[in-house]
């Protein structure tokens, strides 16, 4: 069976993009990815679009984006795995190559979250759980769901609000080095700690913003990749899992079972261990999510995430740098685009093209950790230079 490589990447500026509609926004990253891959659009047999939708006007985004970018006629579909929709798109495109359907496929992640007002966005995200049992009567929000995990983690392991704020400070530190990030300014620990409470004990600076953005990868079979590029980045392990919609049914509130499962599958398929990873992106929709990711990915033991933060182990220069693109917190989190954006960042890092946020690449291995909902979906992917 062939291997599959990332051969082209594209990434729009993330942020409040009131200057573009959904087609224009997707085009920005599609154009870059097509140019980067040096591929003829006619050779792209499958275009998978990751988008959660609801907050913008078009209900068939795959078709709208395809028309705008001159891709009508390709096989296409939209995939949704909540905030992991982008990784689901990458996986579907990857599967279409492995299955022999096409030599070259594209995954586009795109979201426009600012065409409705903020309370409506909060509402749409809050509804994405168990509507009947956790929203209709109780008005859950996304910060509130993650706050349930944060409180449990604090109670069980002594994790503090300051530990969480440090993750926010780290995100902004590297966001300042990413010209495509929504926030490109460093912040102080004090500023994070003093920000407004949104769902106790999580504050505004524990939370990623509402964002617009797009990201695209072009994937190719081994044969096509060798023809198209000298710097392929191979997809070596794909792990994914799911958990219940009702938070009340989860096994525990100190980690995400789906993430642990997905990581185990990805490591096993790639035949690597957590310690082999040179660079990772973790799904930090909230600071607590990044902290739990360290543990769920096996970067440290359960309960020791805060220690990793305090000791700077996930900073540039640390044992396993995480989210050197600013993460969802500073880079922004356009729901459907995030998973593809992670694939773009890891590809840049493994190619050595990450500029002043470049991690040292020793074993040539990168990892993306992309969570949908509050662990409703988990996608973990291992990338490799070789």
């Amino acid at each position, binding site marked *: 069976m062939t291997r599959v490589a990332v051969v082209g990447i594209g990434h729009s500026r993330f942020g409040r993009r009131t200057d573009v509609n959904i087609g224009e926004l997707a085009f920005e990253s599609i154009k870059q990815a097509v140019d980067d891959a040096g591929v003829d659009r006619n050779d792209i047999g499958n275009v998978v679009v990751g988008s959660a939708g609801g907050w913008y006007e078009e209900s068939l985004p795959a078709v709208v984006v395809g028309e705008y970018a001159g891709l009508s006629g390709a096989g296409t579909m939209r995939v949704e795995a909540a905030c992991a929709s982008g990784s689901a798109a990458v996986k579907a495109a990857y599967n279409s190559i492995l299955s022999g359907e096409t030599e070259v496929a594209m995954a586009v992640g795109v979201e426009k979250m600012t065409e409705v007002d903020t309370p409506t966005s909060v509402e749409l995200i809050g509804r994405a759980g168990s509507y009947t049992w956790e929203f209709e009567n*109780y008005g859950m929000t996304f910060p509130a769901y993650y706050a349930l995990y944060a*409180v449990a983690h604090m109670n069980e392991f002594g994790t503090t609000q300051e530990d969480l704020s440090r993750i926010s400070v780290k995100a902004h530190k590297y966001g300042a080095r990413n010209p495509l990030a929504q926030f490109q300014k460093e912040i102080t620990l004090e500023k994070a700690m003093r920000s407004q409470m949104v769902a106790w004990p999580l504050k505004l600076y524990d939370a990623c913003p509402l964002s617009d953005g797009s990201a695209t990868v072009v994937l190719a079979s081994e044969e096509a990749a060798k023809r198209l590029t000298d710097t392929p980045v191979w997809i070596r392990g794909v792990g994914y899992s799911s958990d219940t919609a009702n938070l*009340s049914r989860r096994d525990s509130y100190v980690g995400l079972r789906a993430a642990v499962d997905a990581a185990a599958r990805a490591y096993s398929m790639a035949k690597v261990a957590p310690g082999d990873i040179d660079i990772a992106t973790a799904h930090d929709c909230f600071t607590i999510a990044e902290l739990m990711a360290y543990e769920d990915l096996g970067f440290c033991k359960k309960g020791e995430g805060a220690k990793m933060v305090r000791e700077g182990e996930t900073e540039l220069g640390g044992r396993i740098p995480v989210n050197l693109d600013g993460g969802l917190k500073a880079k922004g989190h356009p729901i459907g685009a995030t998973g593809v954006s992670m694939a773009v960042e890891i590809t840049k890092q493994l190619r050595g093209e990450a500029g002043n946020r470049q991690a040292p690449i020793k074993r040539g291995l990168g990892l993306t950790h992309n969570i949908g909902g509050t662990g409703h979906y988990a996608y973990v992917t291992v990338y490799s230079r070789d």
Partner: protein
Amino acid sequence: MSEAPALHSRRPLTLRFDIPISRTHEFWDSLRAGKFVTTKCTKCGNVTFPPQSDCPRCMGSEFEWVDLGQDATLVTYTQVMTAPASFSAEGSYTVAIAGFRGGVRALAWLEGVKAEDARSGMKLRVEARSRPDGSPYYVFVRA
């Protein structure tokens, strides 16, 4: 940043759902009578909350209603400060996940306790409430 040119849609879309509860309306009926019940699979004995008329464990579709009692133990909690649009009139509210005997858990508002004053392991009681329109829901209160 000044607002960029936009087409302000003149076609608002309003969605309000009628969610079928034929299979499990006994839950809401019992709640109105002050009882907190759920489903138990008659084939494998699996008790689930929320109630399900089909068993996620053995796929059997026969079940009976069991009373979970009023007593629950606080597992985890938060307090919503920024509410969604449709809850904008509710102010700030504390939300809890609490466990019943037998192990099932539920999520509901925790009335009368600020999140800062809550403690995991705290003894709670589940109580029925109704909205001004008469629709029932349930909350936790300190036992």
